[in-house]
Every structure is written in C-alpha cells, then in structure tokens.
C-alpha cells in the first residue's frame, strides 16, 4: 500500500514537473507572468507611495499632462485628480473584481459540475440541459439590468458577474468528474461506505483543482473585461472610486484635449488582459499534450 502510493506520487509529480518545464520554456507565458507580477506589485504598493490620494482634487492643476515636476506622473483628469494614483487604484478594483468574481463562478461551477458528473443519470441530464439553456441567454444584458435594478455596489458586481461565468466551469468540472469517479480510489471509498458528499469533497474536488487552476487564469481576464464593460457604460463602480473601465470611459471623453487620460489606463488594462491570456494559453498548452506542437 505504502509503496503504491509512493509510485503514484512519482507519476503525478512528473506530470506536473513536465508541465512546469514546458511552461518555463514558453517565453510568452513567462513574460506575461513577470509583467503581471510587476503590475500586481504596482497596484498594491503604488497608491501608498504616491503623495496624492485617489480622490484628492488638485484645483490649480486640472487636466495637466504627465510630468515629473508636478508629481503627477500620468497627468491629472478634468477635476485635477492625480491619474497615476487613480490608474493604480482602478487597477486594484479591476483585479479585485476579476479575482473575487472568478472565485464566485468557481464555487458555483465546481459544486454544480461535480454534482452533475458524480450522480450522473437523469439528474446529470437535467442539470446539463439547464446549462445548455442558460448558455443561449444574452447574459451581458441581464447583468446590465441587474446593475440598473439593484444599484451599483461592488458586491452586486461580484455576484452578478460570478453568476454568469460559471457555465463553462460547470461543463469542464462535470467532464473531469465523470472520468474521476471511475478511478479506484473513489471505488474504494464507496466500498467503505463513505457518503456521496464526503467523496465529492475529499476525493473528487481536490483532484479537480489542477484543471480549475488553468481555467481560472482564463476566467479572470473575461471577468475584468465584463467589469470594464459595465464601468465603461457608467454602470460599474461609483465615483470617486474607479476602475480601469471607468477611467477609459473618462479618458475617451477627453481624448482630444487630454489623450493621456485615455492612454495610461487603456495601456494597463490591455497589458493585464494580454498577460492573463498568455499565461492561460501557456498553462493549457503545458498540461494538454494533444495541443503540443
């Protein structure tokens, strides 16, 4: 028994080790990861280092361009607020929404998919048919409606976006569960009389985490995009709080006179999405031997 587990571990380790080596060789993914780390560090630490607060209005210096002399590295907006600190602060909100809403969708997706896959049969058929139906819904529109109906607080953003993004996750998790439940360790647990819930929590879900980890790097940019989309329409976070989407909107209104208001947040938003997409692609390639070319 002991030896068997040990051998099993060796096999598992080499699969992940292999994937890690492939990922390390993927220059795009590694550059993405490095850039992402820098952006994360900047949005976390940056706002503390700046001499301006994100909602401080510097009246003598409204709509001035980027300069080192005034301390407004990215310039200021029409209200004289420092864009450097606002862009980093907006990044905090965008990334926070990205991560939290992804976790919400993750929780829904895993519970739904693992339940459908593990119990199978008619329950599975009904649950997946329901997912098929939801797939066809114009969800972006429903999210906009939810934001309008129930106010625009950040909690609502987390829930609304999380609640629409779990469908893919549920499908992937179900597929994995279908194959996992045939494995010996699940059979062994069933033979010992372990309950379904315990098997799901102790044996199925931990084995799903690898797939989930890859998938979440692809979900986070989608969520950031949805949040920016909402903020761009003026339905996301509320002033004086901000996010990249809201900053891009303000910038696009002033771009003829103050292009820096558009360019800095747009650049950071696009770079972040770039990084996540490259990392996600790289991870998928590394763990999916079929696509390796």
């Amino acid at each position, binding site marked *: 028994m002991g030896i068997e587990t040990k051998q099993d571990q060796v096999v598992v380790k080499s699969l992940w080790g292999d994937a890690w080596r492939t990922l390390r060789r993927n220059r795009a993914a590694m550059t993405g990861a490095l850039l992402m780390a820098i952006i994360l560090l900047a949005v976390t630490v940056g706002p503390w280092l700046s001499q301006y607060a994100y909602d401080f209005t510097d009246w003598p210096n409204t709509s001035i361009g980027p300069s080192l002399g005034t301390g407004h590295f990215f310039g200021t907006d029409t209200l004289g607020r420092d864009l450097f600190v606002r862009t980093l602060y907006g990044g905090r909100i965008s990334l926070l929404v990205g991560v939290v809403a992804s976790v919400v969708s993750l929780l829904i997706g895993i519970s739904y998919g693992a339940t459908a896959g593990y119990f199978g049969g008619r329950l599975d058929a009904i649950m997946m048919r329901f997912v098929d139906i939801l797939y066809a819904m*114009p969800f972006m*529109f*429903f999210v*906009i*409606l939810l934001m309008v109906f129930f106010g625009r607080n950040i909690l609502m953003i987390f829930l609304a976006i999380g609640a629409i993004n779990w469908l893919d996750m549920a499908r992937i998790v179900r597929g994995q569960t279908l194959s996992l439940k045939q494995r010996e360790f699940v059979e062994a647990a069933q033979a010992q009389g372990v309950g379904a819930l315990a098997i799901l929590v102790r044996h199925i879900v931990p084995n799903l985490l690898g797939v989930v980890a890859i998938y979440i790097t692809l979900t986070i940019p989608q969520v950031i995009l949805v949040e920016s989309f909402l903020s761009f329409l003026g*339905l996301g976070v509320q002033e004086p709080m901000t996010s990249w989407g809201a900053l891009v909107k303000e910038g696009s209104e002033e771009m003829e006179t103050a292009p820096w208001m558009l360019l800095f947040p747009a650049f950071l938003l*696009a770079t972040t*999405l770039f990084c996540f*997409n490259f990392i996600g692609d790289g991870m998928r390639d590394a763990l999916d031997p079929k696509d390796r070319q």
Partner: protein
Amino acid sequence: MLNYFVRRILGIIPTLFVLMALAFFLIRLAPGGPFDSEKVLLPEIEANLRAAYHLDEPLYQQFARYLGNLLQGDFGPSFQYRDLTVTELIMTGFPISLRLGAGAMVFAVIFGVLAGSVAALWQNSRTDYFVMVISMTGISVPSFVMAPLLVLVFAVYLGWLPAGGLGGGSLRNMVLPVVALALPQIAYIARLTRGSLIEILRSNFIRTAKAQGLPMGKILLVHALKPALLPVVSYLGPATAAIITGSVVIEQIFGIPGLGRFFVQGALNRDYTLVMGIVVFYGVLIVVFNFLVDLAYAWLDPKVRYG
C-alpha cells in the same frame, strides 16, 4: 435530416421559454412601476390604470398574457417614450444595428479566415508569429478601448474618417465602428482557422492529395478549407452574441442611434419595458441564429449523425 431538424426546433422552445420567463420576472422584481411620478395618483385612477395594464390579474395570468403578446411581436408600451410602443422603437433602431453588426460579421469572417490561413500555411514563420501576436492583441484589447484609440488616430489626428454619427448612412461613417466591432472577432476566427487548418494539413487525405501532385492552391481550396472551417462555423453563434453585446458600447461611443444605444439609454432612464424588450428581441435573435448555425454545421459535417 428532417428528424434532426424537428428535434432541434423542439429543443429551442424551452430556451425561449426560460428567456421570456427571466425577462418577465426580472421586470417584476425591478423597483418602481410605470405610474411612478411626482404626481401622486388618486387610488381610483391608479386602480383603473392597473386594470388597463392588467396589473390587477394574478401573476401567472399576467405571464401568460405577456407570452401571448410577445408571440405576436407586441413588447408592450414604452415607459419613457409615452407615444411609442417598444415594438416601434425596436423597429427604428434595429435596421441600423443590423447594418453595423452584419458588416462587422462579414468583415470578421473574411479577414479572420484569410489571416488564419496565411498563418497556418507558413506555420512558425515570421508571418505566422506576426498574425498570432496581432490576433492576441485583438483578443486582449477590448473594443471599447480600441474604438476611442481608432477615433483618436484616424479621426482626430489624421482626419481621414468621421469620429461618429450616422452621417445620413454614409459608408465612411460606418468604417470605424465596423472595424472596432470586428477586430476581436477577426482575432478569434484567425486563431481558430490557424489551429484547425494546421491539423487538417497534416492529415492523411491531404498527404495523399499532395502525393498525387495536385497544386497546393487546389488542395487548399477544394480539400482542406471546408473541414478546416467547421470550427469557424460553430464559432459563428458565440460571435453573433459577442458582436451584439459589443455593439452596445460601440453605438454608444460613435453616437449611432441603434438598438444598443436605446438599451443603454433605456437602462439609465429605467425604461424597463424598453430594455426588457431589447433583451428578449436580441435573445430570440441569438437563439435562432445558433439554431441556423447548428443546421449549417450538421449539413457541412458528414460526421454529425442526425439520429
């Protein structure tokens, strides 16, 4: 085939039902009603109004009435535009949105397939990397970032194209919105085409065709492209949904009076019947389009069995 067709048609009925039920109950959840205004109405008058709009009936009866009206293309009266019905508003906005969306779709398919094929034919060449980096950019830069940038460069700095408006339907006014809307889709389609074409070009039947000495152009057009385009065909469903969603911001940015702008204005003005109407309208459109795409896929792919 007929069997498959009927089954798929029956399959979209629950989808449409869920869509309409969601619309109906969301609008009931929405705070505020059609008669909220500064003037407080007399109870008798309000009761009369409620009766006129059938709001005094039990909920299931209202839902049945709502469904019945929808099936006849009646989306109810608009809260905001008192003289117009939602149906009339949709019919004013939709032709404009359709022109924009259809333009973007055609543009996306042509350029996406072209770029993807070029990248696949010269796999791992500099051209390939170039196409892939551009398409990654297209995927990563959201259309509401791309659109202002395009305006900044082509309208403000270069002055080649108008920055917005309908311009009486002139083609020059459509260029920037169509391009901004199509770019992410071009990127996705290029990646899909490249991936599947590379796989097809390695398959046995292509090797046989090459061995027989067929010219590469003929192999590509006659043998490789059709199977390679199957993933693109099935992507057309999600692409439509993405273009419709994207048109909401694009119309807002360029000041195009299509359905998307009605939707945003309606949402901000809390014109619930109008926004629900647009959601249902677009939802039905997406469901029906997905159905057509599935049919086309089944017809193109000999491996799909109609059982």
